């Protein structure tokens, strides 16, 4: 005879566990943090060990404007998710669009910086250990920003078609976690590359 475990209904009514989207994103962020940690360790390990070629001091300029844009985008996305939770859809779209724009400015800034480094300063990934670790670490972060931009754009499109409403707050919050993570990683990368490493 097949049976089941039974219990008073009270257990069922009080039972609530965390939202799976947030936990899933936290897991992904854990894994990504581990990858970034290894690239940061490699960067720090190789500081000062290049046998030749330009040093960080000689070629790196602080990307202040791009960094301000990226870090502000955390504030705008926070405002966006707040607006969505209150069902203020037009505010949500506006803040979301700002977030996307600020992120795009950051990527354009990175691209210009790299163009300058490659063509004006002669620093490529094969030049020396600094080139290798710089482009891979900053590039890994930029790649994650690009993935975020694709997500931001997709959600913006959906929002413009009216598909994103208050009941999707949790889902959008989950994506916002990823975006905040990308910003925090930038703080670490900025510190390691442009402050400590120089």
């Amino acid at each position, binding site marked *: 005879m*097949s049976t*089941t*475990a039974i219990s008073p209904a009270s257990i069922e009514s009080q*039972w609530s566990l965390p939202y*799976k989207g947030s*936990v899933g994103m936290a897991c992904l962020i854990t894994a990504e943090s*581990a990858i970034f940690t290894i690239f940061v360790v*490699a960067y720090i390990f*190789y500081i000062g060990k290049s046998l030749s070629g330009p040093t960080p001091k000689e070629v790196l300029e602080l990307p202040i404007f791009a960094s301000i844009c990226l870090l502000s985008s955390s504030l705008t996305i926070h405002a966006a998710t707040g607006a969505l939770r209150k069902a203020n859809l037009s505010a949500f779209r506006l803040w979301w669009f700002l977030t996307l724009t600020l992120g795009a400015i950051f990527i354009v800034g990175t691209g210009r910086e790299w163009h300058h480094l490659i063509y004006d300063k002669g620093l490529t990934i*094969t030049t020396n250990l600094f080139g290798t670790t710089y482009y891979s670490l900053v590039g890994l972060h930029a790649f994650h920003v690009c993935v975020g931009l694709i997500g931001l754009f997709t959600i913006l499109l959906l929002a413009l078609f009216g598909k994103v409403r208050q009941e999707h707050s949790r889902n959008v919050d989950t994506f916002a976690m990823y975006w905040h993570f990308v910003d925090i990683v930038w703080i670490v990368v900025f510190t390691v590359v442009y402050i400590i490493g120089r």
Partner: protein
Amino acid sequence: MSSESIALTAVREPSRALSDWLYSWVTTVDHKRLGILYILYAILFLIIGGIEATIMRIQLIVPHNHFVSPQTFNQMFTMHGTTMIFFVVMPVLFGFANYLIPLIIGARDMAFPRLNAFSFWLTAFGGFLLYFSFIGGNGLYGAGGAPDVGWFAYAPLTAKTFSMGHSTDFWTLSLLVSGFGSIGTAVNLVVTIVCLRCPGMSLGKMPLLAWLNLVMGAMVLIVISPLTAAQVMLCLDRFLGAHFFDTQAGGSAVLWMHFFWIFGHPEVYVLVIPGFAFASEIIPVFSRKPIFGYPIMVAATVAIGFISMSVWAHHMFTVGMSSYGNTFFALTTMIISVPTGIKIFNWLGTMWGGKLQFKTPMLFCIGFLFQFLIAGLTGIMLSAAPFNWQLSASYFVVAHFHYVIVGAILFTIFGAFYYWFPKMSGRMYNEKLGKLHFWLFVIGFHLTFDFMHIPGILGMPRRIYTYEPGRGWEIWNLIVTIGVFFQIVAILVFVGNLLYSMFKGDPAGNDPWDAWTLEWSTSSPPPEYNFARIPAVRSRRPLWDIKHPEDPDWKYE
């Protein structure tokens, strides 16, 4: 006290066209089917990896043998190691986790079924990509372009200068791809266990199988990424001329070793912890007692998970770290033996005073206890760094880690097969053949891996395609090779038993073992929705509470 039937009688489905049936399997997102796909995939690669091992052992049966060329032999040990770790043990453990976790926590499926399917196919593709190297890569010279850099692919042997052609790239890319699959499955495992437990199943009332897979999943998230990162760096070196591990440009070969072993050591705990989980479910049922010391077992496992991330450089005692580095890693490695030993004592405590039933799953778990004890003790020998300076990179180490992976992990996996086969297939396996498999495998295992310690002690390094006569190694290599054939026969008996029983075995019923966790409350095999009603539980052994209403667990926990 009433009880509800929670599974309808299995309905015979109308027979479908073969193409429909195949399509349903290829596109499935059902955790049970994906679990079975993982397990079947692992069995296929177990056989392939076993053939590679057999080829090596035949080459080494006498000194200066000419069974295969050195190039082929070097490909064999690389492929054997890579296959067994990434395409046999990890998939089979993910397969069992996939199948069992939702059932044992009273859920309908994993948290993200489509991610689950995607992860499986990524892993599967990784395996096929690795084996494509035999015909891709450098073509068919010898045995094609399969990687020959060893499963840990030390730099700078993997640099373009020393590994021309694409064989190393096959190694790197296949593991990169399957690594993403592993991370996907780990995300699913963690989220499912954290978020989908049935009402009443707090973390303290979760069966150990769920706890240990939670720890394993969390570890995979942290630990596969260093390998992924290192492999990305290797790709940058090989394809874009970067210098991460390029010693000519000031790069460090030791850095690869650190990154690899930061993955590699916790990885072996990722492999063994689900094995512990199987033992923690099987031993209580066949001792007719609850697991001894549940809270300590959880704490010990979590401790092992943490400590395991601090011991990695015990694989690097010979690379010339300072005495302080060597001392630190010797200490952490010795420390991890404490929670591990605690677990062995708790399993013994479970058996103590019980009524032991020596069915096949239990036999394999007892073998596991015996062999894991020995493996742990040879591990302690290896943790004493100066002793390690003699033993490392020798056949002693090969014997040690096979003792863990085959003697401990594979034995618990066999136990899990026999224990849950009735649930998955609805039929009982043949007990006599199961016992035959056990005894044949025990004989073969001990012939091979007990005596393998001796050539290591006598100075025989690993990864050599032949060896000099007169060093006292010949007799031991002969015995080691003979043991392989017992194991081959045992595996054939195992596979034959499963195949035959799948079609002709006696019907198993819901609960052939009189067990106590939720998977035994539904039909065998379970319906696609697992439970007609999501159960609610009050203790770690919900079925014990039902079967023993006068003495339920929740009074004592």
